[in-house]
């Protein structure tokens, strides 16, 4: 801790080795955030290809085989490459500062968790250029599509997922150890900021389900290459077994994505309402309840595979139960804003949009949870619309809000508020134009993951594509605003940045020094 971080002034070699060999939670957080943004742009480019092809019925731009690779890679890259690392980046930056710790508990392992990701995604993406093409079986990689009928490159996908999982597990163990072991004296569990709470629960989920994903891809590997019959009924196995295992991982996974987003919003809304968060402890218990329920509802993704009726009923009711703790959260956010002195800076706009659109996505989720109705909705664009409302307007909006909210703290410079607001409105309108019509398409019967569609779906698809290009454009503006802020933003020295902000991270100088809380602060 003798010296500050190397800058470009120290020469390229030193600057580069700072980032490559760092053990600093802020550096690693920054690496995670930039990596996830790069993946977000790549996954977004795949989405643009999809929407361009679907702009009109018939095949115009790409072959159906490549379309399948695009939908698969879009899902994989966005879930594992963009959203998850973005929140790990935020966790790295913020958790030590929020609990008064000098760094993460295991700083070298922290850097390892990050550097695995570029390798994992290089392996995954390289398959697009190999013979047979990239993964083309959907991001849920159901057997036998991903086993018997998969291209040879599936092996690269399998091992890519393996090391990515190792990265996630190490990252989560680090977060758990940090939160359990590194809190400043006086920082009891029930005084922890919501973002820390949501992340530690997320980390528990990750440690519990990433090994199950590893098990699933291992079974695939064995079935494909070594003659086992996990997913082959001829040998006594069952393709549906794959779906059970996948969704035992996959359902907690969607909460892994959304819980940290809840945490972010639980910080931003109180700040710009100038009121403490309403119902802090109910927020904590609701988060824990959602996490618990996420383990016992997985088969609601598979209502149509022919489960016994008792199973359908159980998974339907258990799923509906999730609405209760989630409702508690939405209620608390709204009540926090009630009679507050609200201002609408960019982070707040994104957070309010989050609450509205995420709730909307939750309602469509309730519709999908009704087993009998799901027979109609299953695998249609209604499902696509549903999960983009929670993934994009949920997780991505919250991540964007977090960047605007904490960026001045990180780099000591203020972003351009007008540009931020312009980006918000383009993103908000573009998002809804993209995904609202997909509800109608789905209800009208348009199946997902097809490169072509019937003429009756043409109008709404064109509208959806236009919205998608708009939303994509908003991300370029976002990138520009962030780069402009870091390079040429208006300097700010105010430790609090936002007048309504509360918490340990706002007691630190702005920009946050390279090393913080070498000695733990006292918490009253």
């Amino acid at each position, binding site marked *: 801790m003798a010296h500050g971080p190397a800058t470009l002034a120290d020469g390229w070699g030193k600057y580069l080795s700072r980032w490559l060999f760092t053990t600093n939670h802020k550096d690693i957080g920054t690496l995670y955030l930039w990596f996830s943004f790069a993946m977000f742009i790549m996954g977004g480019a795949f989405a643009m290809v999809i929407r361009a092809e679907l702009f009109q019925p018939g095949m115009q731009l790409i072959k159906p085989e490549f379309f399948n690779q695009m939908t698969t890679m879009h899902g994989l890259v966005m879930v594992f490459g963009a959203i998850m690392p973005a929140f790990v980046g935020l966790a790295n930056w913020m958790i030590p500062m929020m609990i008064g710790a000098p760094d993460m508990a295991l700083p070298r392992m922290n850097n390892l968790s990050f550097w695995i990701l570029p390798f994992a995604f290089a392996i995954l993406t390289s398959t697009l250029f190999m013979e047979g093409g990239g993964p083309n079986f959907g991001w849920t990689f159901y057997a036998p599509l991903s086993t018997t009928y998969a291209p040879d490159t599936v092996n690269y996908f399998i091992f890519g997922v393996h090391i990515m999982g190792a990265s996630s597990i190490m990252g989560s163990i680090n977060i758990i150890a940090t939160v359990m072991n590194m809190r400043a*004296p006086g920082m009891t569990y029930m005084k922890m900021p919501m973002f820390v709470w949501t992340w530690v629960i997320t980390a528990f989920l990750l440690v519990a389900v990433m090994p199950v994903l590893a098990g699933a891809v291992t079974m695939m590997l064995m079935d494909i290459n070594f003659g086992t019959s996990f997913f082959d009924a001829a040998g006594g196995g069952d393709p549906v077994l794959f779906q059970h295992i996948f969704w035992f991982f996959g359902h907690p996974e969607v909460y892994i994505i959304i819980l940290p987003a809840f945490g972010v919003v639980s910080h931003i809304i109180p700040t710009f309402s100038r009121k403490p968060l309403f119902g802090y402890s109910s927020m904590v218990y609701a988060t824990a309840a959602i996490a618990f329920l996420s383990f016992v509802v997985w088969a609601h993704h598979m209502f149509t595979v022919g489960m016994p009726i008792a199973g359908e009923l159980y998974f339907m009711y258990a799923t509906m139960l999730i609405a209760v703790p989630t409702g508690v959260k939405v209620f608390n956010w709204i009540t926090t804003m009630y009679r507050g002195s609200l201002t609408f800076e960019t982070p707040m706009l994104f957070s309010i949009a989050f609450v509205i659109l995420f709730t909307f996505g939750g309602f469509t989720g309730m519709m999908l949870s009704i087993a009998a109705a799901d027979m109609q909705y299953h695998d249609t664009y209604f499902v696509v619309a549903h999960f983009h409302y929670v993934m994009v307007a949920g997780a991505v909006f919250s991540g964007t809000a977090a960047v605007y909210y904490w960026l001045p703290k990180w780099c000591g410079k203020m972003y351009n508020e007008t540009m931020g607001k312009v980006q918000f409105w383009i993103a908000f309108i573009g998002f809804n134009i993209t995904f609202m019509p997909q509800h109608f398409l789905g209800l009208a019967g348009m199946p997902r993951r097809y490169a072509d569609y019937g003429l009756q779906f043409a109008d709404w698809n064109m509208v959806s594509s236009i919205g998608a290009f708009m939303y994509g454009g908003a991300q370029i503006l976002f990138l520009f605003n962030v780069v402009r802020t870091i390079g040429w933003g208006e300097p700010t020295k105010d430790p609090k940045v936002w007048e309504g902000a509360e918490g340990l991270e706002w007691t630190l100088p702005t920009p946050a020094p390279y090393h913080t809380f070498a000695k733990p602060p006292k918490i009253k």
Partner: protein
Amino acid sequence: MSTESTYYVPEQSKMPLIAATGMGVMAYGAASWVLEGGTATIFLIGSLIMAGVLYKWWSIVIDENMRGLASPQLKHSYVLGMLWFIFSEVMFFACFFGALFYVRVLVNSWIGGEAAVGWFDDTPTDAAAANAQHLWPGYETAWPPMITPDQAVNGDAAQFKGPDQNMSFPGWDRILHWLPLWNTLVLLTSSVTVHIAHTGLKDGNRKKFNTWLGITVALGIFFLFLQVEEYIEAYQHMGLTLESGIYGTTFFMLTGFHGMHVTLGTAMLLIQWLRGLKGHFTHDDQFGFEAASWYWHFVDVVWVGLFLFVYVLA
């Protein structure tokens, strides 16, 4: 919660990046190895990088500890790290046990055309009825399944052929020839011996520690030897292979992954034994050994589950 002492934050380190490179090369190498006509070269290069970096990394950590840089708080972070790592391993095995239960209890009856075990209702589902009438006629629900559904329909032309014999309990008269029983005794004993070694270390009795840990490592190696014997027996005399339908699949994957973990655990204990000979541990500072012994107990518990559900209740 932290105390007043300062927490040791290591300086920059090259280890993580090299380790990530090693993992990346291993993953790429493994994927190209399993392809038709692939070779192990790249995978082996990755493994060498990985082995080298792990040796170096742990040497650094041990050295830091010997120089007194590791505060009690940091050591607690290591404890938490190990415990949660073991939890992740538990979940990995849970995945394979879950697959076994699902296949055994539900799928096996469904393919045979029976209802879903009669827990909820006795009427066969449409899927079960279709299986019995159209897809796999002639397949009868049984565990272990000595005939695969494929065989029931296609006879000798089947791709998946069931085993000639299985590994289940052979009856009381042949119990002493039943290898899994000996395996169980060996592994359970090793859990006791590693505990005795631990008490030796706590009492500051080095000789007791070295002796009993040495015995534990020997028992671990003996277990692996027996397991190899069992596999050879299965492949050469019992017609039981990875390709023997779902029984061979679950049998070899569960015992195989367990065996890999025993190998890893034995290696861990062996390293701790060598460290013990170099005088690395004291009666109140022995995390390296404790972590390895927790791992060993975990592997032991998994075996008890395996013994019950793969061997005894079959």
